[in-house]
């Protein structure tokens, strides 16, 4: 499953980038995040409760923030599994300046398995889009608040 999205932030690419890779910000913004703990550098163990409509599930897994190129890009690797199934995804996040603002482009690929993939595939694209939108909406707030704070 291909996942893509573009999000515009107020602020400089370097500031936006710094927030995007900040584990505290990630922990706050991952939808339904219940716990987020570092396991060595760049890798975190997370528990998330994610759902859409009556379908809810708890996933346990890891989030890795790799190939960090400050102010430019990083690679995000995500793995989670729970009773409804599992998700494995990998994406590249690029941060570029555009007309005084910062544009964040996400492109990735995800595999969803288990029962959720079996019966839910027609809706997975939309569901992941909604979750990612929610994530970046939250990040936008983080960036805004750091700007106010600084």
């Amino acid at each position, binding site marked *: 499953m291909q996942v893509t999205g573009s999000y515009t932030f107020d602020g400089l690419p370097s500031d936006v980038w710094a927030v995007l890779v900040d584990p505290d910000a990630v922990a706050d913004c991952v939808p339904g995040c219940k716990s987020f703990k570092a396991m060595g550098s760049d890798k975190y163990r997370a528990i998330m409760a994610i759902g859409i409509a009556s379908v809810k599930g708890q996933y346990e897994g890891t989030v890795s923030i790799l190939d960090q190129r400050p102010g430019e890009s990083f690679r995000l690797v995500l793995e989670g599994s729970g009773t409804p*199934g*599992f998700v*494995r995804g990998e994406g590249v996040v690029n941060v570029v300046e555009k007309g005084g603002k910062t544009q964040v482009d996400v492109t990735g690929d995800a595999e969803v398995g288990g029962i959720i993939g*079996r019966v839910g595939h027609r809706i997975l694209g939309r569901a992941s889009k909604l979750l990612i939108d929610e994530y970046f909406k939250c990040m936008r707030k983080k960036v805004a608040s750091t700007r106010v704070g600084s």
Partner: protein
Amino acid sequence: MTTYTGQWMLRREDTPLLTGNGSFIEDMAPPGLLHATALRSVYAHALITRIDTTAALAMPGVVSVITSDDLEGSVGDLSTVGRPGMEWVEGANHPVLARGKVGYVGQLVAVVVAESLSIARDAVDLVRVDYEPLPVVMDITEAAKDGSPLVHEHIGTNLGASLRVAGGDLDAAFARADHVIDEHFEVPRLSPAPLEGRGAIAQYDPEQRTMTLWMTTQGGHHIKELLEETFNLPIEHFRVMAPDVGGGFGMKHHLYPEDASLCYLAYKLGRPVKWVEERMENMVASHARGFATHVQAAIDNEGHILGFRARQLADMGAYYIAGTLTPINVAARRMLGPYLIDAADIECVGVFTNLPPTGPFRGAGQPESTFCVERTMDIIAAKVGLDPVEVRRRNLVPPSALPYTTATGMRYDSGDFIAPMNRAIELADYDRWRDAQRMQRAENKGKLIGIGVATACKAAGGGGASFTSDARVVVTPQGKVKVYTEVSPHGQGIETVFSQIAADVLGITPADVQVLHGDSDMVFRGQGTFASRSLTVGGSATHVGATEARNVLAGVAAQKLGCAPEEVEFKDSKVYKRGTPGQSISFAEVAAAASATAQPGGEPGIEVTGTFVLEDNVFSSMAHIAVVEVDPDTGCIRFLRYVAVHDCGPMVNPMIVEGQVHGGIAQGLGEALGEVMAYTREGQPLTGSLMDYHLPLAEDMPEIIFETVNTVSPMNPLGVRGIGEAPTVAAPVAVANAVADALSSLGVRVPNIPLTPMRVWNAIHHAGS
């Protein structure tokens, strides 16, 4: 002297089934029953790094959780049935429980047993399995290429099995050809989807050292043999019994990991254990078809086929199960269909993929190959500018050439391959539809009319041991008859049909005949129901057994009637000397007298075992014609007419024949129009539930115009040719040919089946790109 044979008789099986009084595995509950649920792989290809069963085992009510470690030394991998002349690699037999690695989504990893099904189901969610994903290969063409990820590293190739059959001078044929047709055809991976999924109950008797497995199966004797090969425990006797079975279509002629697990658990726990499959499990348990074929046909300007070459890839999935090699064998050997083709070279290669294992499905290789040949016939017609019917007429084996042996070594015993086509053309109003098509094309608007023809032949019997059948016939002192058959019916109406056969031989009524089946202890050897063998082989054995019983009775009656045994007639439940029906004695009286002379021991009455051995497959032939309308704006297809004519030999029960034809066509249309087990690149099922896998619905079915031709085969005492699988052979390609014909007016090539609206629309709207 046939009174009941040939009659339209209601099925005696139906009343209990339709009134909810059937007895399926789900209805059975021996005392002390435990319930099993399955933990299955969610990955298509991965190493298992850890299995943690502690939490599940700690749950109250949970009795056992087994993984592959428990089976070590006691239960081997599932065996597969080889085929003469075929090569296949070792080391890919299906493990009962995944050993360190999984090869497809749905593979059995662990089994949880508990006091109730709900507890077992709750406990499955507590078993934790960690996986390390491996590269996945799920496309046969990719899998066959060098450098593809390997399903079995230790084997070193995905090319697991191959069969090559050839005959005649193919080089000469291509050298003198006016044209060469070069085409590629694909038949999708399908789910056989029987109405009742799989399921079994295992119970072990430690005193008798007997393992009893009640199972929804097509052949208990076959399962018994497979269990014997798999188990390495001091079990002396396996008994396999089939209660009512809700369809199988080939899918229930394997021993599955779940069945073997149940036997192991019953042995270990000393209590009966039951498992009944859910539909979502059935959808990924085992599949069929999944063929890609490259065809080259050498033809002359008159449309004659001079030579035929085919290279097929067959999707075997990740492991062999019992019948995995069957479709490969059938597809290659029976590629050439009902045609005179002097030279051929056919190779079929079985390929491993990270998908569920495969096996035969109604037709078992024949639909796979018929699809290629019948598409080719239409392409030849277009090439040489002839009507598709005319091309077939020129190539069909004429009755005068029968018996005929194909270049691949198949012997067609007898019959008339042209007669069904001639009749189908009449019934379809073929010429009128061609006129309608010409008008539609001239107007160049609206829906596109397409006409598709398929002619084919289909073997009945199977091969090897399945050519032999025993029927134990008991005549009770009361004059009732019991026929014990090794054939294992699961929807075919065998009880009705065999009772008609025995009744006619013995001059009694079908109501006097009981037909018993579904117990490997009942008849000492057997094979089951598959390969259209039930009537041709098992029905013939019933005929032989009933005839032998009659001979015994005739001897006894002759003394009473004061005539020679040859002069004794059996009719209307009476026995008399030929010519003097007025001075008869009742059948029951003869039965009672004969019983008095019978050996002590066994059942009361007389008992004989009739054995029938089919020398070689017997072939039926058929012609289907589909007329369709394609909506070019949406890609939707609608039937305007559907005709099927089958030469199945004489019919014992025409109603059952028609039922088989309707069901077979439904499955064939499903294959043509909707069914496909589609997967993502990662090997995750996309059509893994019936909300996405399009089984045909009643409203999808056209009205079927059906007739038979009835040439008598010399191969068996009934003269029959089999009907169970035949309709599924012709239907998919009749439809594909019709849609291809409709699209040809736009210069568009028909896409691969299933011809879903989107595929057809894409073909139309992306033609040329």
